[in-house]
């Protein structure tokens, strides 16, 4: 036995710890017992982030797969209990870092439901606009990382290239590529800047050219087909038992999309389809996500047409922050008119502004659960208020976290190479899983 593979006796039999490449020594030492436990991750390029898979193998067949998570746990839910309701946005946006706009919107919808307020029409339309751009960006990253994990590197370079275009537009609108903290309770933090609408239209034109390239590149590609077809099968019953929603559920044939079935943010007024597949495998999920990108582009276009001039933050001065922002000399967004007013004319307005920003607004006691359709499925926010200026408890039902439970069902009995395809087809984002 080589020094690379120290062995030790346990009640379970001989355990080999492989630290280096001397595979022959391991195989020779293992004898007739072909059962092998392989620890994959948390640092592994194919595990979609810091996911750890404990795989029990017989030869190349996975007999048992267990996911180990928590490596990215940052206590976001606990932290939010020590910040005011508006500051909570800055925390939730960092959960599922590929879909920050969705986290923010779900959280803000929950706070608004607790407050019993309606946000202005324009703010809702901007939210839809940003969410759908974000959905395209998120699906592109799925395509990119999923492609990379299956060896399709061109999918990665293309996916990330197009995604960057989406992020550019989101940066124009929100000021940041990711972690925007743009959607706020009561509306959005500022109106669309000049030129944003044109930039979105440009983006749509580019995407209309480039998204079909995905089809041309991958759909007819025999290797891509063989890696995904009949792999990671999970039917509707399995999905519902395991709580799986989103593209995985739709790839099994059930057109359950909250934008259609329990509409929010005025989605009932948009014309779009819910793509489904019937194969219930990785291939179906690929097709559903590509089709969803095209549907999202339709929604973005309609959102642009629906944009009417108007306020983007609730008029109620007890809740809404000033939203007419301009770039200050310190590089931060400033509402110059507002600063002029509170600093120059009204002591009461200054006090009020100070109170609103440092102390925050009070939210009537109670609890709500608000679900929305994120790129990965049902993203639900359970928010509890005790009537104070801080959340009493916020729990986020993260689709990545719940969907990840299906990894065992998809992997067990398959080849180890298909386990990679299975995890890729689930599209878990570890920031969301661990929170």
């Amino acid at each position: 036995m080589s020094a690379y593979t120290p062995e030790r006796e346990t009640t379970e039999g001989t355990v080999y710890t492989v630290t280096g490449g001397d595979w022959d020594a391991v195989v020779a030492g293992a004898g007739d017992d072909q059962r092998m436990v392989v620890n994959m991750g948390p640092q592994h390029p194919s595990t979609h982030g810091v996911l750890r898979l404990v795989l029990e193998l017989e030869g190349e067949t996975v007999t048992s797969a267990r996911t180990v998570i928590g490596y990215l746990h940052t206590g976001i839910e606990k932290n939010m209990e020590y910040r005011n309701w508006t500051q909570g946005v800055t925390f939730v946006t960092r959960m599922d870092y590929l879909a920050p706009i969705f986290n923010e919107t779900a959280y803000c919808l929950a706070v608004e439901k607790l407050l019993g307020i309606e946000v202005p029409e324009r703010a809702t339309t901007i939210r839809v606009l940003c969410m759908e751009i974000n959905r395209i960006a998120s699906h592109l990253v799925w395509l990119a990382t999923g492609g990379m994990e299956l060896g399709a590197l061109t999918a990665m370079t293309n996916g990330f290239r197009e995604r960057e275009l989406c992020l550019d537009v989101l940066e124009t609108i929100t000021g940041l590529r990711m972690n925007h903290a743009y959607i706020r309770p009561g509306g959005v933090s500022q109106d669309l800047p000049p030129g944003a609408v044109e930039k979105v239209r440009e983006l749509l034109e580019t995407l209309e050219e480039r998204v079909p390239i995905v089809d041309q590149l991958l759909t007819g590609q025999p290797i891509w087909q063989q890696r995904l077809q009949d792999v990671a099968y999970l039917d509707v019953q399995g999905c519902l038992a395991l709580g799986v929603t989103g593209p995985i559920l739709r790839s099994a044939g059930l057109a359950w999309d909250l934008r259609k079935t329990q509409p929010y943010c005025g989605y009932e007024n948009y014309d779009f389809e819910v793509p489904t597949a019937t194969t219930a495998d990785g291939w179906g999920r690929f097709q559903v996500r590509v089709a969803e990108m095209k549907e999202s582009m339709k929604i973005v276009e309609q959102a642009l047409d629906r944009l009417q001039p108007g306020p983007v933050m609730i008029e109620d001065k007890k809740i809404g922050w000033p939203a007419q922002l301009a770039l200050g000399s310190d590089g931060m967004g400033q509402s110059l008119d507002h600063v002029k007013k509170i600093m120059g004319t009204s002591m009461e307005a200054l006090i009020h502004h100070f109170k609103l920003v440092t102390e925050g607004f009070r939210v009537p006691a109670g609890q709500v659960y608000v679900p929305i359709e994120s790129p990965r499925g049902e993203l639900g926010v359970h928010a509890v208020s005790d009537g104070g200026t801080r959340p009493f408890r916020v729990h986020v039902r993260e689709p990545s976290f719940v969907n990840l439970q299906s990894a065992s069902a998809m992997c067990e009995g398959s080849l180890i190479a298909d386990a990679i395809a299975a995890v890729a087809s689930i599209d878990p984002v570890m920031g969301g899983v661990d929170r």
Partner: protein
Amino acid sequence: MSESGVEGKITVSPGGEHDPTGAAGTGGTHLTPSAVSPGGLAARHGSDMFGAANGSDTTGFGGLVEKPVAKLSTPKPYGGWFDEATDALEAAWPGFADNVLRVVVDRGELTVYVKPAAVLEIARVLRDEPNLRFELLSSVSGVDYPADDARLHAVYHFTSLTYRRRLRVEAAVTFEDPHLPSVCSVYPTADFQEREAWDMFGIVFDGHPALTRILMPDDWDGHPQRKDYPLGGIPVEYKGASIPPPDERRSYS
């Protein structure tokens, strides 16, 4: 806080319970000594307009005492599909009268409070009864209400894809006896979520196949999202001033 709320009747406990020293400024207790009753109805003390209740507030509003509202259940009819669903639940579940503590309709959401031992039973009825058909258990989480005796609440959000309905079931257990039956046998999706509730709140789900920590390290002490578990943190120095850690900053709640 008074646990004596009689169903359907509002009881008011005396405002004399107000503790003027306990609210803000003291490290780690950002909570007012107020109670959040699980019906989403709060019993709050003082300072509802502005500022802290500990005397540092000079606005004159700090000493106000708001009378607490007891837990109450919503009287029938609830409106919408809520009556239909609760009637169906009552008809299909013989244990309804014994186990359902109260039903609350708030902000267009239906919450059924049940005894902890009945969680598995009600989950099975909700899933299997043709008039209910809550096929999906969307979320299981915990909430810690320090003012309640049974302070750990397990909260279940059910979704019916057939009827496009959502329903919340809540059950409360104490620190000393934090046991609930696991619903994993009915909804396998509860696996990870119950583990998270155990990890974060120390709620024990009996019958769970492997109730281990999921987000925190295996050897972690304590349950971080309980309200008496400190957030932690260190003071940060910035331009000569020292900013205390978040849980020691002034609180307005």
